[in-house]
């Protein structure tokens, strides 16, 4: 038997008081696709960053192809034949594809010979692995799928034999993801070893040969993919039985709460992101917006939440809402009984340096209940309110004098959800409600959303997680390139159909 391509022995790593990896050992056979699955914060990415020389392990050894190898920096990792495709691409936006590929692997101090040699090699790689890209295109002008190819080509150009991909499908449409997997199979068949990090069970089941499961910094199991099931993996990930389905009774939609007509939104760079959409959300229903990140869902939420101007008509309970100028900001939206759980809680929903009790009023801080006088705020009222919400939503640690950054992702999200849902809004806007949230908190947050619906309120849910959309929504609209590609009922559609819509293939053609 040949030596394993990678063997990690007893890897441990701490960040301050947090132990991200505890005594992890793993062996990856050459020429296979090896999956690593685990929840957010389970330590997958830390482990791979150690392998790529980004962090130094506190303890443990790395063996590559049967040889003990020190990897103090990325240079050493590259020299050992390891390539990594990060979740967030590491590309220079205003450089060409070719410049990005040679960066750090130039052929001498002069640029021109390096570039022409690289162009030739790139041509060969393109034919060998069917990885076509335009070498002279600027990164900022090509799509994410293409950018990912550039990242893979970067690794191959550096003659990587081991390729690590961190959550590679997060930004891809299902068809694009399928194409990525075809490339990966091809690479495997050429003898490359591939490590696939993901939190999506289906990808593991479909694409990998072997799978390792991580939980809370520990490696809990390594099994042949063929010998396991999604249910078993989920249980290994979480440490207990998991309900993959959300319990809910059928919806009984009432009057129209939100009506959107021909809405158009432009982003900060002047690019039109929402290109004339029509949507309706009724009382007592959850409308899920499915789509790959970057197809206009974020801008849709931002306009509805008053963070960005738009053009078109939005009515709430029949009353038109201004889309620009006075009356179109977040304060006016809240006054109109629209609550908003934003997509990015750390950059938007919370002030990370504020205490929990300050955050519990964030956005509603001008409410009469929080004022002591015309000028002064009533901090005692704020703290009282915070303590109540912390208890009702089981936020841990239950201490309103901690700053937001001291809570875990799940508890941060609970603070935001508590703040918004407890307002009893007519319309709840909620974006990526469970991104970076542990499974326990996911179940809790899902229940709260469904409860709000059952109380006869309208919910507009945006999520890039198709599973979440399918299990929560009463109706699904698919967004692609700023347009609504179609609406479906969750019981009368399939992931495949939705996937095609998300890729811009319209219903009739599919």
């Amino acid at each position: 038997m040949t030596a394993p391509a990678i063997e990690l022995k007893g890897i441990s790593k701490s960040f301050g008081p947090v132990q991200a990896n505890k005594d992890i050992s793993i062996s990856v056979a050459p020429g296979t696709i090896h999956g690593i699955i685990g929840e957010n914060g389970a330590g997958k990415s830390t482990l791979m960053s150690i392998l790529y020389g980004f962090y130094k392990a506190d303890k443990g050894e790395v063996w590559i192809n049967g040889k003990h190898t020190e990897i103090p920096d990325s240079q050493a990792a590259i020299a050992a034949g390891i390539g990594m495709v990060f979740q967030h691409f590491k590309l220079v936006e205003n450089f060409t594809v070719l410049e990005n590929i040679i960066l750090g692997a130039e052929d001498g101090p002069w640029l021109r010979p390096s570039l022409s040699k690289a162009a030739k090699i790139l041509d060969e790689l393109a034919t060998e692995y069917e990885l076509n890209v335009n070498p002279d295109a600027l990164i900022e002008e090509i799509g994410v799928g293409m950018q990912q190819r550039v990242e893979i080509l970067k690794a191959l150009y550096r003659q990587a034999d081991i390729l690590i991909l961190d959550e590679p499908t997060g930004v891809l449409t299902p068809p694009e993801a399928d194409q990525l997997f075809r490339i990966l199979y091809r690479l495997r068949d050429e003898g490359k070893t591939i490590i696939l990090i993901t939190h999506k069970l289906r990808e593991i089941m479909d694409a990998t040969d072997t799978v390792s499961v991580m939980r809370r910094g520990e490696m809990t199991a390594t099994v042949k993919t063929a010998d396991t099931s999604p249910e078993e993996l989920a249980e290994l990930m979480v440490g207990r039985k998991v309900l993959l389905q959300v319990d809910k009774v059928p919806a009984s939609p009432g009057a129209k709460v939100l009506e959107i007509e021909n809405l158009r939104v432009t982003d900060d760079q002047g690019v039109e992101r929402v290109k004339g959409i029509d949507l309706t959300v009724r009382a007592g229903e959850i409308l899920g917006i499915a789509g790959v990140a970057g197809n206009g869902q974020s801008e849709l939420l931002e306009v509805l939440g008053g963070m960005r101007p738009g053009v078109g008509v939005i009515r709430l309970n029949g009353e038109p809402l201004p889309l620009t100028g006075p009356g179109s900001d977040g304060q006016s939206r809240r006054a109109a009984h629209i609550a908003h759980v934003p997509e990015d809680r750390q950059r938007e929903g919370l002030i990370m340096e504020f205490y929990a009790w300050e955050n519990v009023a964030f956005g509603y801080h001008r409410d009469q209940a929080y004022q002591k006088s015309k000028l002064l705020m009533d901090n005692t009222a704020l703290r009282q309110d915070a303590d109540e919400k912390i208890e009702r939503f089981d936020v841990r640690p239950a201490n309103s004098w901690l700053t937001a950054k001291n809570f875990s992702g799940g508890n941060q999200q609970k603070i935001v959800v508590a703040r918004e849902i407890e307002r009893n809004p007519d319309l709840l806007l909620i974006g990526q409600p469970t991104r970076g949230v542990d499974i326990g908190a996911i179940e809790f947050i899902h229940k709260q959303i469904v409860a709000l619906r059952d109380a006869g309120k309208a919910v507009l849910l945006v999520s890039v997680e198709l599973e979440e959309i399918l299990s929560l929504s009463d109706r699904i609209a698919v967004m692609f390139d700023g347009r609504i590609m179609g609406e479906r009922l969750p019981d009368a559609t399939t992931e495949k159909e939705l996937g095609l819509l998300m890729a811009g293939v319209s219903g009739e053609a599919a």
Partner: protein
Amino acid sequence: MMDFMTLIQVLDSTVRLATPLLLACLAGLYSERAGIFDIGLEGKMLVAAFFSAAIAYVSGSVWLGLLAGIGASMLLAGLHGLASITFRGNQLISGVAINFLAAGMTVLIAQDWFQQGGRTPSLAGNARFNPIELPFAEALSGVPFFGPIYAELLSGHSILVYIAFLAVPGTWWLLYRTRFGLRLRAVGENPAAVDTAGVSVVGLRYAAVGICGILCGIAGAYLATALQAGFVKDMTAGRGFIALAALIFAKWRPWQAMWACLLFGFLQAIALRYQNIDLGGVVIPVQVMDALPYILTVVILAGFVGKAIPPRAGGEPYVKER
């Protein structure tokens, strides 16, 4: 109106006054293109001016003075690197601190060494950079039009002036035609890309800050040993900030930086030659000319003449993350 010879003289003075701006501007270009904002150009020039003049005076050799000036400037550049690269501090605050450090230390040391109220003794002879006559300047000076341009405008500057203007194509070539330039530009746009490609972000940024130190050193030495004959307190007089303005005006590109510096040098030359300028009845007071470079910079910054987009990673310390 100005006659031809006056124009030549003003342009000649423009070149002299643009030189320290250009050197400092290019210095800032290297630093900021690598993602390190530098509002400490002023301070680095100031220490270089002092140490070049002091050492030139003591040793009698302007070349030793130049080396000392560069050394002092690089010391402060290293401090800026330590604060903003190694300790990931606030680059603006570091720059402010460096400016004050230079303003205080130069006077302190000057007073301790020379006891002349914070200045150095006047430099003469080999302790100064003297003008270089280009070949045939004398012979060609009689030729109409081109003669004066060659003899008066192009010839007769100190070596540092020619170095400054040669540094422009040099910088362009380094930035766009070499591996180092590619990496330097990349580290100012996206340091994570450089890091994951196995190149040291810290090393590149220190290199850039180091080059910045060298160029600021030459700029300061030029002020004290070529443009003037010795150091006086606060002699940079805001030139570091004007250079910064020129850099923004030039949108961080070398050739444009040269034109911007020549423009600002021209404004200074005019202000120096004429006190109050009479434009057909409307008298422009000298204070307006003094303030013009700063006003112009604000107008440029306001984006009324095209948007200036700095390097994307500029000002942000690099912290490794996934």
